């Protein structure tokens, strides 16, 4: 009697477990639409020249992008940047850097050398 009961429960479990598992995977026609992610503003496509700064939409977009860039700057951990050893960077072998057009870099290198000395931090 007891073994019959156990067999019946086993059979029911065999049917129910896969059925419940499959039903939990049932999804709508586009599951991506249900996975809402918190997106950051994509400010790269903003064309400032075409923006009318009297338009509240343009002003709102500017504010959003400025706030976002400000908060991302604040999140940068400047304290850890002190550990960067710029003296070792002088030994960089530019000849191994393929595709770099050094003729265009001549004028900028002096400026870059000045900005690398961390006085700006």
């Amino acid at each position, binding site marked *: 009697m007891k073994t019959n009961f156990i067999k019946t429960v086993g059979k029911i479990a065999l049917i129910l477990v896969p059925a419940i598992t499959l039903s939990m995977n049932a999804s709508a026609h586009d599951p991506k639409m249900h996975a809402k992610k918190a997106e950051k*503003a994509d*400010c790269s496509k*903003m064309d400032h020249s075409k923006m009318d700064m009297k338009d*509240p*939409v343009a002003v709102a*977009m500017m*504010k959003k992008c400025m*706030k976002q860039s400000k908060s991302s700057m604040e999140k940068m951990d400047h304290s850890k940047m002190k550990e960067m050893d710029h003296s070792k960077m002088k030994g960089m072998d530019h000849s191994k850097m393929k595709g770099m057009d050094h003729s265009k870099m001549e004028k900028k290198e002096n400026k870059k050398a000045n900005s690398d000395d961390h006085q700006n931090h």
Partner: protein
Amino acid sequence: MKALKILLILLLLGGASAATVMYSGIVNVAADEPHSDIVYWLLEETREASIKKSAQHIKVPDLESPELLLMGGADYEYMCSSCHLKPGLEESDMSIGLYPQPPNLSISHETHQHGTDEELARQNFWVIKHGIKASGMPAWGKTHSDERIWAMVAFIKRLPTLTPEQYQVLTAID
């Protein structure tokens, strides 16, 4: 006295007929089975008249502030866009499945709208705050302040003019 008796009998008959229709189960409440034209018209006219009357004394604030667009944009994206759509999204599970079908707020409805911008703004505020019975439109006023609801009204006002790129920036999180 005789007229009163007839009226009473008619009332009883009317009540009995209504109860028969109610409890027989012959009324199809499935959302994928549309109302007949006459029932749809009756419900729509009743709804519009009710909203118009209820919203008539609401004072509309200045809706041109960029801050309102930013506040309302984020709320619209998370509370409204799945039903009322957004630039670049022409349909969703909710917009297809709900009945009555929620209006697509990302396109201009100038041909259907009656009244001034101000009337429309106060009606939108009332609908967002109080919701609409048996339509799937919730009463956001139970959980959101008037300020946030006005921000959504301001955003909805500009929504049909937005490109998908503008919408993305205005509705993104900070």
